[in-house]
């Protein structure tokens, strides 16, 4: 094209070549916009037709892989889970052998972090302590997501009196903050005598589910009126079938985010209960117990408290960071930005 300002439309340029009768305008049609072939718009609009479109989860996964926050946190989480599952791979020292002659000693060969007030090896205790924190966090999250998810989905999907009853029930549990409620239960004689990882998990689930129920309810309400649900219903899918097949999968994203962040807070809650002396029994090797027993000598030997606290904080931090990264990847609103 020699002159961009006076180009003609394709049909018009051929018109003079054919013989015509009557008055034919020789005027070329003026265009004040650059032709499509010369603008960068084509590159933007081009669609590779041979490539398969990515689904929601595949696209989220692609977004997630690019985030440094996700890479750092997932590496840390894998490491913590490995330590929790196979502590014997990381240390050969028995965390329960505590010779008093080593009490409060600094680092020695083979004992890189020194010894506690009781003479236990700090490194071994930090390694073996991962297990109870991970188990409490993981199983509490599973329980909370199951109970809260079912309650929230039913309330949000069916609405009406069921919603009203479940919402009030959630409000009642909400009025009892997590730690306060856990204190009431864990100090009961029945729980005091049979304290274990599972009683802690149970307590945290009892007071943790309303939060997940609220989030699920909101997400389900948003999804239940979507066009694809109406379409599936009009194609003959039962009401419950539509909930399971279409509404639930489309309300999962916010629940996953909250579950990941909550996992971190449950680990903190377990440590807090253990610190108050009503969490895990003292015989269980856990970070919360170690921090709790280190407080008597915190003025003189802060390192005894420092290492389990550091391990706990890094674990919690990586779950919260994972939740943050998931939130960014799963939120379609932030995706286009």
């Amino acid at each position, binding site marked *: 094209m020699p002159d961009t300002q006076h180009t003609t439309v394709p049909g018009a340029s051929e018109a003079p070549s054919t013989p015509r009768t009557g008055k034919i305008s020789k005027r070329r049609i003026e265009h004040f916009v650059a032709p499509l072939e010369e603008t960068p718009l084509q590159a933007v609009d081009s669609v590779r037709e041979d490539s398969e479109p990515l689904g929601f989860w595949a696209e989220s996964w692609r977004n997630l892989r690019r985030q440094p926050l996700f890479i750092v946190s997932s590496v840390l989480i894998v490491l913590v889970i490995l330590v929790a599952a196979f502590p014997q791979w990381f240390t050969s020292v028995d965390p329960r052998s505590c010779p008093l002659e080593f009490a409060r000693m600094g680092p020695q060969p083979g004992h890189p972090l020194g010894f506690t007030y009781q003479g236990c090896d700090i490194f071994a205790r930090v390694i073996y302590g991962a297990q109870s924190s991970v188990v409490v966090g993981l199983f509490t999250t599973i329980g909370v997501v199951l109970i809260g998810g079912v309650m929230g989905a039913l309330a949000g999907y069916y609405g009406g009196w069921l919603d009203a009853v479940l919402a*009030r029930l959630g409000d009642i*549990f909400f*009025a009892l*903050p997590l730690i306060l409620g856990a204190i009431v239960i864990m*100090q009961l004689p029945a729980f005091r005598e049979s304290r274990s990882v599972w009683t802690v998990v149970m307590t945290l689930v009892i007071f943790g589910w309303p939060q997940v129920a609220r989030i699920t309810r909101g997400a389900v309400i948003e999804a239940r009126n979507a066009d694809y649900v109406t379409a599936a219903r009009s194609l003959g899918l039962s009401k419950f079938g539509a909930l399971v097949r279409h509404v639930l999968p489309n309300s999962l994203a916010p629940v996953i985010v909250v579950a990941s962040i909550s996992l971190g807070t449950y680990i903190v809650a377990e440590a*807090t209960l253990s610190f108050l002396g009503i969490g895990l029994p003292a015989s269980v090797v856990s970070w919360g117990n170690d921090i709790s027993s280190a407080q008597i000598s915190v003025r003189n030997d802060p390192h005894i408290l420092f290492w389990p606290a550091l391990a706990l904080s890094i674990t919690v931090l990586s779950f919260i960071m994972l939740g943050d990264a998931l939130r960014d990847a799963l939120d379609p609103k932030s995706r286009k930005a």
Partner: protein
Amino acid sequence: MLMYMLRRLLQMLPVFFGATLLVYFLVFATPGDPIAALSGGKPMSPNVEAALRAQYNLDQPFWIQYGLYLKNLLTLDLGVSFSGQPVADELARAFPVTARLAVLALVFETVFGVLFGLIAGLRRGRFFDSSVLVLSLVVIAVPTFVLGFIFQYVFGVELGWARPTVGSGAPWGDLIMPGVVLGLVSFAYVLRLTRTSVAENMNADFVRTATAKGLSRSRVVRVHILRNSLIPVVTFLGADLGMLMGGAIVTEGVFNIPGVGSLLFDAILKGETPTVVAVVSVLVLVFVLANLLVDLLYALLDPRIRYA
């Protein structure tokens, strides 16, 4: 507005009754006899046991027990602790201390959380924003009691800026450091909430209109962005009171503050179930009332809520 207040008050009632019933049910209907625990597991003479059962109304049917417990709670007749003091008196002594601590924590988290969140939200993606975000994640991840020990050690023992433990009478000056520790986690949440909300409102149409009609930037930020961003923060502060009450138990333990938290903590250690129930019930009452207040404040901030 009056209708809204009435509706909220009515909604509060089932929550209050439900929550107290829940606490009462958990304590007195679960396996394990609280009276047997009172004697430390040793056998008791039947007369003493019967007297104790009558004292805690355990000889009555469950619903009457619960009714009597509610009546006692509302008339602040909270029973007698092991040391022979009325629990209500102990609570009256401890409550002002915890209230001071909570006020300091709330002021700290609101002022600094909103300020830092506003700056971070206005400069999204810049250095200040990312460093404050990382800092807030770290603060959330470190448990309150560890933060307490760190502050106590660094500022109290090493630097000597504050007294590591609180003196008798718990004066305001001594409570500043514990208050900051108590408010730190919520500070991180307030900061993140304000930041997200500010960043969202910056792209809102009404902000563009305000800028387009020639308002100064400071007025746009103050009146249009900040005010609209405060709504979720106010909601959070209501729920946060519950977190503060849980945190107060830990903070008061670390800094040796004679507040409601340590009262509860001591009662737990001694196994004084009735005292624990009484204190927790009062805290639940405070929490429910505070949330009612927040809801009313919320309606003042955002007139749309009243008609919803």
